[in-house]
């Protein structure tokens, strides 16, 4: 790495006169980065520099997958590497699908994913795992999805699922529509046209949002739970969470769905749960998950929620995304197993969950779920 950088600097000095320095820097640095980090390897520099009493774990742990977990993973990695300074953790936010397939092929030692492996997939073969030892899948990241809008002077709106479905299906076209006004007595609604913004890329956020609509407003939302927005529906499309945020911010009358942590200075919708309207909150998301059942027919270490979107639990916010971490039941490499186990333990620890909550606005796991998940992690060999 050092050699590569030195070479880069020489080339930059040479090229800077021709005005190509910026380009050269980008090319060279990306070249350097690509040379780094084999999947799992013992660090060649085996000097144990950490002075605390933690066991001398070392090596590089490479995982990746759901981009929803990026901020949380950063928080966990920072905390983890403070304790275990000889370990390098890389999380590559490639998206859930790529994360799962790279984990299957042995490219990633662990995966983050918004969709757990199906029961059949989980029973299959995984390149990095000992055959027939099953998977460990645990929920680690619970985050509310906000329905955010841009209407000057309106900080919050009450909407029921049917109205939200009609807005995103393009059936309600103006903000002063009767259905919106009826749920919001006393709010002065402008006659601005509605611009409904959705994700143009395939996304777990879209998957959870459409799942919520399909469960709670099946009459109005007939497109099912899909990660790619239905192509029959028009409306504004934007790339990734930041694209949606930018589109909502830039146009009065826009409405869209995005991770709640990114909706800070936008107006947000209180969704109808039972007979109440509930604003998004980490507590509400945790309550909605806690009130849901686990999927049946899975191994004890395969903890996957069947989210109950229709629940009427008081204060629960069922428009929530649950993202999972996936590991082998038994790794072929003992050091990798120990790295993954220790890293997962850190992620679900009180400190890890709190760090994620601060960094990403997620909901910390409750104590019941933490003990369930910790049991599963301890089975990683």
């Amino acid at each position: 790495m050092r050699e590569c950088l030195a070479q880069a600097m020489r080339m930059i000095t040479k090229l800077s006169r021709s005005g190509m320095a910026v380009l050269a820097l980008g090319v060279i640095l990306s070249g350097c980065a690509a040379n780094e980090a084999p999947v799992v390897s013992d660090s060649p520099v085996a000097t144990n520099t950490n002075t605390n009493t933690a066991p001398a774990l070392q090596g590089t742990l490479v995982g990746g997958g759901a981009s929803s977990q990026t901020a949380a993973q950063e928080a966990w990695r920072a905390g983890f590497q403070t304790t275990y300074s000889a370990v390098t953790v890389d999380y590559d936010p490639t998206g859930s699908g790529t994360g799962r397939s790279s984990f299957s092929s042995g490219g990633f030692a662990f995966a983050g994913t918004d969709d757990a492996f199906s029961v059949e997939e989980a029973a299959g073969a995984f390149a990095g795992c000992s055959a027939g030892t099953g998977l460990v899948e645990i929920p680690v990241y619970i985050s509310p999805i906000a329905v955010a809008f841009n209407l000057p002077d309106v900080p919050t709106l009450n909407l029921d699922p049917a109205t939200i479905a009609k807005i995103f299906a393009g059936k309600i076209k103006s903000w002063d529509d009767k259905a919106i006004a009826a749920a919001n007595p006393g709010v002065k609604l402008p006659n601005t046209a509605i611009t409904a913004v959705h994700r143009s890329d395939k996304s777990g956020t879209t998957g959870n949002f459409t799942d919520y609509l399909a469960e709670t407003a099946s009459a109005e939302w007939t497109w099912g739970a899909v990660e790619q927005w239905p192509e029959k529906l028009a409306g504004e499309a934007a790339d990734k969470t930041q694209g949606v945020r930018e589109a909502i911010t830039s146009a009065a009358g826009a409405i869209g769905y995005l991770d709640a942590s990114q909706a800070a200075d936008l107006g947000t919708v209180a969704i109808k749960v039972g007979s109440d309207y509930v604003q998004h909150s980490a507590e509400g998301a945790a309550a909605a998950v806690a009130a849901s059942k686990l999927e049946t027919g899975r191994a004890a270490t395969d903890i996957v929620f069947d989210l109950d979107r229709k629940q009427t639990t008081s204060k629960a916010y069922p428009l929530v995304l649950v993202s999972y971490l996936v590991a082998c039941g038994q790794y072929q490499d003992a050091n990798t197993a120990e790295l993954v186990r220790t890293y997962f333990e850190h992620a679900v620890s009180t400190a890890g969950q709190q760090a994620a909550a601060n960094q990403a606005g997620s909901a910390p796991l409750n104590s019941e779920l933490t003990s369930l998940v910790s049991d599963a992690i301890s089975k990683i060999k």
Partner: protein
Amino acid sequence: MAAILAEPGAGVRTAAPSDLTGAGRRKERRTDQLAKWTVLASGAAIVVVLAGVALFLLIQGAPALTAAASELPYQVDFWSLAGPLAFGSVWVSGLALLFATPIAVAVALFISRLAPRSVSRYCGIAVDLLAAVPSVVYGLWGIMVLAPNLAVCYRWLSENMGWFPLFAGTPSATGRTILTAALVLAVMVMPIMASVCREVFAQTPTATSEAALALGATKWETIRLAVLPFGRSGIISGAMLGLGRALGETMAIAMVLSPTPLLVSLQLLNSTNPNTVAAMIAQTFPEANGLQVNALITLGLVLFAITFVVNAFARRLARPKPEA
């Protein structure tokens, strides 16, 4: 390559072989051979890489061509998927070229023919710098500055000129339309085109332009009679270079455009726009699996074919006319 650099005078010495002793001639032959083979290998590498890419696209993409519609993105057969995307790529790049070409030619004329030497030097550097700005920066500028400001213009256009078919439909409130994308692309490809045109214009034979001036032509007439006809092939190859970049542009389009899958539409001001091949690949690949990946690779092949056709066409256009 190293051999050429080490022996910069090799070509010059061949011109005067009588000066060389026998040993010098042998050394000469060796370096010549080395240079010849190095250059040949570099040339062959281009062909090998190109063939390799084409072969990779063909082999990896083939399963998608016969796949059932249900296995592919949006549950349509491959050609119904590729058609609208190919249209989107060509449409947005064509628009970009339409905006960029006149400006690029004007910039090149200014730098090479009209501006004082001191101004033209710095102007040339500025254009080259513009070409080095990464596309993600243009994307950010497009989404944060250009689109919101253009939204106002689009509303006006739609209200006052909505009868014009290209401006029909409900105007986008965010301004993230195919017209905005084309404008961003135009700014991106303009510097490349201007650079190529500038070089060609600067090489206009002095005799021709001075003859025009001597006959009493004004500056503009000289440009029209002497410079532009001479630079025709340069303008075309510059435009094709720009079109190549526009066709392959991914990041700026993905950031700026609000795409609707499978749509073919000529309307410029709506929220629903045709997507481009490159942007579709970038947006769908991270979460694609199975045959969807093959389909995306074949989409790459489609883009490859479009670029190939465009280049072949440009070569034909740029071929100088036989002298009368």
